[in-house]
């Protein structure tokens, strides 16, 4: 580790690799500031990260054990000169809580072990799915190497320390009790296993837990579930800064909603409305008319001025929209609660509509390989422009100047003093004493691995956004994002479903009712052949709450003026908040510099050019950049069309970035 050999002076030290921090890092490095970007975690993107299945299991482990070590108070007086103060940072992450894991598919731990021992002669009586020996061999030789091939940065390491078998056993404990809670029939586990081994010709091949673990590298499970509005700040920034070249995207293919006990498609684009079989022609007209109005509602204040003090819901009712159209607009297009004010509802609707048609028939993009790619792309950008990266490395405390009250330097994990003029830090690193004035909300999250689409369609490869309105008054509206294997976030034959809502209780309390309505458990022998239940089965699920500190006001923190706090992810669907925050912080850091100007093409960058790099070199106009992004989206669509499921290289990687601290 070269982390004890860091330079001792930086313009900006950034702690935490979440989206806002990464964007700030990229923006600062881009305008020539010396950036040190560190994260105590072993992976990038903090709570924005995406994990392989095994990576997620070890993340779960870490977070379950979290909090056992009390905050240490070390004596830093040796590092401090007179007239200086110490402000320690938190050493543990408390942002994740109420973690619960459920496994509904047969675990077959014995079989797993047998397979490990006798690689060449699998005892396949219990194995429902045929497995290629090549895969097994691969698994055996490098069970812990779950890094994706395309990852250029060696520091990105989200591998699990413990072998998969161990985790299986650990997961057994919660499973047993949960099955009692969840399975009404209370079938003993043994029978379920038998059913898994029964040679029935089920339509779907059953996917066992072992299989999921074995194929774990095919998963990229996001901790936070968001989509990118095609005309949101994030997409604009990706295009403007040329960071988009580091990633590929797919269009969300459909918007669904849960209405009257059924999952149905929401007609939101012109083509959807035209093609909808559910709407009458009059409804089509009414909906189109309303949506057209929303697109530039500001131009027609007379339409809604009577409703400025009333709710959007009332406004919709007053607009001759039938009940189902009201549902679509309120829950799936505006995605706001009923009591939202009319103007806010209109603004949300407009935001949705403006993003339509830029890249496809829905307003959303999803980054292939998961959302965790996005902060990493910005980190890569920062590294390309000289930013120094160091994972598993943290800042232990800040050195404050007593007189000015500003942060002069930081002291890192190795006890080294590093001076800086600005310090940017993720909210999670701030100790309780400094955040007394800050109130937190929480996000309830669930991640499910399922075996089928919520709404069948011609293609099995669908990326769907599903809005579930409050199931009962007072309950939160829940948002589901269903990802298919072509997004490179789950193994073929499975779907990854993310549920998100603002917390009112624990994640399971909030989300379990929705899960049990939309999904079923894998069929056991007795239920087989019934076929009446078309709902997909949940194979595996995890629930957790994540802290949402976005509502916190900067003034709530008791921190020096040159320490900037970045909140973690919020519950919203888009990432606008984080980008706006990054922009604000950057403006304080470098008031006169442009925020993320277009980066030159990688081949135009001269690394050892001794600062001789011309500012204008390789700059493309914004329009071209936009074209480029459109092309990319186009490409991704083509891939979708051809249903290509092989992994796609993410962007072209520039020559190795100057990251002297990359671990070896």
């Amino acid at each position, binding site marked *: 580790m070269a982390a004890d050999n860091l330079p001792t002076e930086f313009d900006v030290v950034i702690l935490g690799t979440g989206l806002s921090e990464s964007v700030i890092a990229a923006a600062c490095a881009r305008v020539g500031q010396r950036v040190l970007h560190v994260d105590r975690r072993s992976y990038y993107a903090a709570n924005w990260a995406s994990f392989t299945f095994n990576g997620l299991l070890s993340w779960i482990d870490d977070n379950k054990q979290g909090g056992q070590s009390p905050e240490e108070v070390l004596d830093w007086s040796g590092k401090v000169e007179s007239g200086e103060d110490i402000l320690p940072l938190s050493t543990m992450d408390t942002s994740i809580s109420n973690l619960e894991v459920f496994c509904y598919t047969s675990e077959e731990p014995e079989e797993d072990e047998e397979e490990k021992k006798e690689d060449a002669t699998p005892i396949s009586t219990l194995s429902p799915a045929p497995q290629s020996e090549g895969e097994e061999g691969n698994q055996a030789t490098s069970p812990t190497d779950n890094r994706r091939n395309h990852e250029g940065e060696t520091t990105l390491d989200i591998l699990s320390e413990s072998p998969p078998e161990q985790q299986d056993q650990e997961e057994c404990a919660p499973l047993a009790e949960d099955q009692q809670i969840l399975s009404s029939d209370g079938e003993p586990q043994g029978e379920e296993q038998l059913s898994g081994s029964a040679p029935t010709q089920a339509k779907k091949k059953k996917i066992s837990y072992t299989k999921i673990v074995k194929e774990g590298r095919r998963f990229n499970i996001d901790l936070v579930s968001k989509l990118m509005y095609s005309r949101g700040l994030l997409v604009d920034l990706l295009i403007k800064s040329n960071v988009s070249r580091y990633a590929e995207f797919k269009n969300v293919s459909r918007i669904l909603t849960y209405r009257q006990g059924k999952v149905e498609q929401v007609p939101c684009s*012109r083509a959807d409305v*035209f093609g909808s079989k559910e709407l009458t*022609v*009059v409804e*089509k*007209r009414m909906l*189109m*008319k309303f949506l057209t109005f929303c697109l530039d509602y500001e131009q027609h204040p007379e339409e809604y001025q009577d409703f400025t003090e009333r709710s959007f819901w009332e406004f919709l009712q007053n607009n001759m929209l039938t009940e189902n159209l009201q549902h679509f607009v309120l829950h799936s297009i505006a995605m706001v609660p009923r009591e939202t004010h009319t103007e806010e509802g209109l603004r949300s609707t407009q935001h949705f509509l403006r993003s339509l048609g830029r890249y496809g*028939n829905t307003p959303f993009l999803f980054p292939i390989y998961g959302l965790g790619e996005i902060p990493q792309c910005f980190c890569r950008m920062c590294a390309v422009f000289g930013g120094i990266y160091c994972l598993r490395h943290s800042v232990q405390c800040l050195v404050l100047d007593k007189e000015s009250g500003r942060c002069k330097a930081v002291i890192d994990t190795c006890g080294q003093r590093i001076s800086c003029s600005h310090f940017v830090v993720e909210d999670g690193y701030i100790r309780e004493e400094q955040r007394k004035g800050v109130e937190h909300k929480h996000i309830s999250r669930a991640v499910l691995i399922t075996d089928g689409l919520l709404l069948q369609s011609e293609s099995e490869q669908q990326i769907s956004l599903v809005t579930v309105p409050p199931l009962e008054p007072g309950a939160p509206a829940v948002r589901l994002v269903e990802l298919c294997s072509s997004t490179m976030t789950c193994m073929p034959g499975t779907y990854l479903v993310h549920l998100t809502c603002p917390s009112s209780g624990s994640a399971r309390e909030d989300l379990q009712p929705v899960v049990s309505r939309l999904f079923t458990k894998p069929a056991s022998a007795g239920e087989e052949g019934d076929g009446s239940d078309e709902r997909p089965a949940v194979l595996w699920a995890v629930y957790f709450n994540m802290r949402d500190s976005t509502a916190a006001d900067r003034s709530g923190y008791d921190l020096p003026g040159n320490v900037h706090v970045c909140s973690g992810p919020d519950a919203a669907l888009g990432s606008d908040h984080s980008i706006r925050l990054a922009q604000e912080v950057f403006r304080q850091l470098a008031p006169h510099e442009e925020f993320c100007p277009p980066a030159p093409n990688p081949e135009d960058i001269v690394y050892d050019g001794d600062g001789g790099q011309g500012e204008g070199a390789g700059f493309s106009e914004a329009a071209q950049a936009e074209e480029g992004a459109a092309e990319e989206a*186009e490409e991704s669509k083509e891939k979708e069309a051809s249903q290509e499921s092989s992994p796609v290289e993410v962007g072209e990687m520039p020559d190795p970035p100057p990251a002297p601290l990359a671990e070896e």
Partner: protein
Amino acid sequence: MQFSIYIIAECNMKLMTRDDKSLLYNVGGKEGVLDEEVLLLTQQLLSSNPDFATLWNYRREILLHLETVRSEDEIQRLYEEELSFLEACLKVNPKSYGSWHHRGWVSTRLPRPDWARELSLCERCLSLDDRNFHCWDYRRMVVRVSGVPVDQELQFTDRLIGSNFSNYSSWHYRSTLLPLLHPGSPEAASPQREPPTSSLLKEYELVQNAFFTDPNDQSAWFYYRWLLGRGVCVCVCVCVCVWGFSTNSEVILRCGYRNALYYKSLTHLHKICDLPPGTISDTSNEHNLTVHWTERHTHRDCALYTGRSESWCRDSATDLELFRSELSVEKSSVLQSELQSCTQLLELEPQNKWCLLTIILLMRALDPLGYEKETLAYFQTLKEVDSMRTSYYSDLCSKFMIENTILKMEYAEVRVFSLCEKNLSTLCHLDQLLLVTHINLSSNQLLGLPPQFAMLQCLEVLQADDNAIENLEGVYHLSKLEEVSLRNNNITQLSDLKILTTCPRLARLDLRGNPITQIANIQSQLAELLPSITELLL
């Protein structure tokens, strides 16, 4: 074979870089050479400007030449290379006439064509721009040659319309496929090809979805109009008219095109012949004349009865056949339900011009007289919401008003016809008025009497007071015309009246209230111009 590369090159020179120019001179230097080196040179030029027709022609000459000297496999390879070169050209400019045309040519020359590949190329191209008509054209060619089944093509249009229905090309293609898919009954009497009702209803549903979703999109409305009426022009002989004067007799045959295309009065008036003097000298006997129309294999009989100097034979035109030209769907129940849907749409979109216009057409097809009041009101709204086309709507409205007046005639042989105060801006259907002797066009907004007016061969009295008539073009060779009243019009010059000299029997002319009356000496000038006039009012 010589090529005039230089001449063409001059014109295109501006588009080219210096490198291209030097290349061009190389090509020029090799005039008449048909080898692969020239292929390469032209390729370089065309890749920078694929719309250079002469170079494509040159390439074709070379390829044709090579065909004669190479083996089939080599030819196949050569043409395949050509196709991939064309693909590169299309990437540069997907709307290049030259590239698409050349591709079509190469595809047909290819010894072993791969049509599936061509179809997928079109697919790709249309997914990038679903309105690229070059690609549509090429695709139709590929489909024709490779024999893709019609129903499969219909599904293809389904898909493209599904992804974006603002696409004339898809709708149009559909309109060519449907008749193929549902060929009509073979009897010649019914040339209309009606698809079975179920699939027809499906089409109505599809297009309704489109115009309810976006009523301002024209493409769907045009397709809808096509669906409602796809009448074929039928030329029929409507009327034969014979009259004799003391010296000679004439036979006039008028034939009209039934189911004429929308708003175009395709009517022909044929004066067949003057019967030789003396043919019908004996008016005390009955004469039977037969007119044979060989082209159409029809004939008409006309009897000139004893003691009469004229006779005619005319279709007993029922109102159904007369004007129902635009919307030819036979089942009025379909029309009725379509009218209901459109009225429903109009309630939601009272300002939509397409909807208004379609309603008017539907109403006319259903019951032109019964809906007259509504039609007039809708025309008024139309003129307000689409002020750019006021004149168009006025003309259309005039047409309908004339039709209604004709329909109101009790029998076809009415000879006194009045179109007063109908707000007419234009005259049409004059073919229906061949036998009229007295016509009254007073108090309208006419600017002139169109050439077709000359069809009123029996006209004796023309009244057209209180209009804005400037020209009298149509008052031409009206051999029976005796009296013309043009009070309060806009006739300014003597030359405007010159055409009246072709009407030998004109005796009374009323020009009061026209600017021409201000001209000094006008009376004597008129007397000089039109000596036959005995009663002139100025």
